[in-house]
């Protein structure tokens, strides 16, 4: 038993690296938690209220568009938009800007749509089960903030 823990090197793992390098890892993990928690919230609501009358299935569109927006926003790097990356990519700098613009518009749009669904579809008609509307709102809010964290929480500086 004397050498049981010898193999586990706690001292020289990446913990010695400064926070600058850890920032990208932490941002990626936080974005993953937010994004997937959003989807599990809507899965939970869909399982509990399978009826179209309680939770109209068309409301799922909001989360799907938010996911598409997440993918669009994170498909282009900040370097391609600024124009200082090594390769031009398929669309060039202007194309990257248009792509990012459309991606952010879809993201904001789906967030606003989720609020509309909550108030217009559940609160105002005074449905007995409001939880599906709250779930749609929180799904889209989490996906939106997950996208923001993944996009802006990471730094692309190759040297620190």
């Amino acid at each position: 038993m004397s050498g049981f823990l010898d193999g586990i090197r706690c001292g020289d793992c990446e913990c010695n690296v400064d926070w600058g390098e850890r920032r990208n890892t932490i941002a990626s993990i936080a974005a993953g938690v937010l994004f997937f928690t959003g989807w599990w919230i809507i899965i939970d609501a869909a399982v509990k209220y399978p009826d179209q009358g309680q939770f109209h299935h068309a409301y799922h569109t909001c989360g799907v568009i938010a996911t598409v927006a997440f993918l669009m926003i994170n498909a282009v790097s900040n370097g391609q938009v600024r124009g200082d990356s090594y390769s031009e990519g398929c669309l060039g700098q202007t194309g990257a800007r248009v792509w990012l613009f459309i991606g952010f518009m879809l993201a904001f749009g789906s967030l606003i749509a989720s609020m509309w669904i909550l108030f217009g579809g559940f609160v105002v008609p005074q449905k007995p089960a409001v939880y599906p509307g709250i779930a749609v709102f929180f799904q889209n809010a989490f996906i939106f903030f997950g996208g923001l964290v993944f996009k802006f929480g990471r730094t692309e500086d190759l040297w620190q």
Partner: protein
Amino acid sequence: MAGIKALVGLSFSGAIGLTFLLLGCALEQYGVYWPLFVLIFYVLSPIPTFISRRLSDDDSSSNACRELAYFLTTGIVVSSFGLPIVLARNNTIRWGACGLVMTGNAVIFLTILGFFVVFGGGDDFSWEQW
């Protein structure tokens, strides 16, 4: 490279984690085996990291492939906790079983992380180590 003792320790913790999972299914007061679906998430969780390490040897501070792998791995981990909670909220499994499954998840993912820390670190990570 760490030796046999770390391997034995990690396999022990892996066995404990799987024991928690099976207790959540097989105890008399539970008796349903739906939680075994989290095994899919256990198997999937190291794959993105393996793929990103294979594809890119770039160890600089910002590596988009590695960050995408961390994002997907986090998603798989969150899903393995989300599934028992959704099952328990829907009364498919009991909350006690859900708690046992989540404990098993935590132990298994710490085991997998332990594998990466002990056996996977270093600049010369290559498949020849296997």
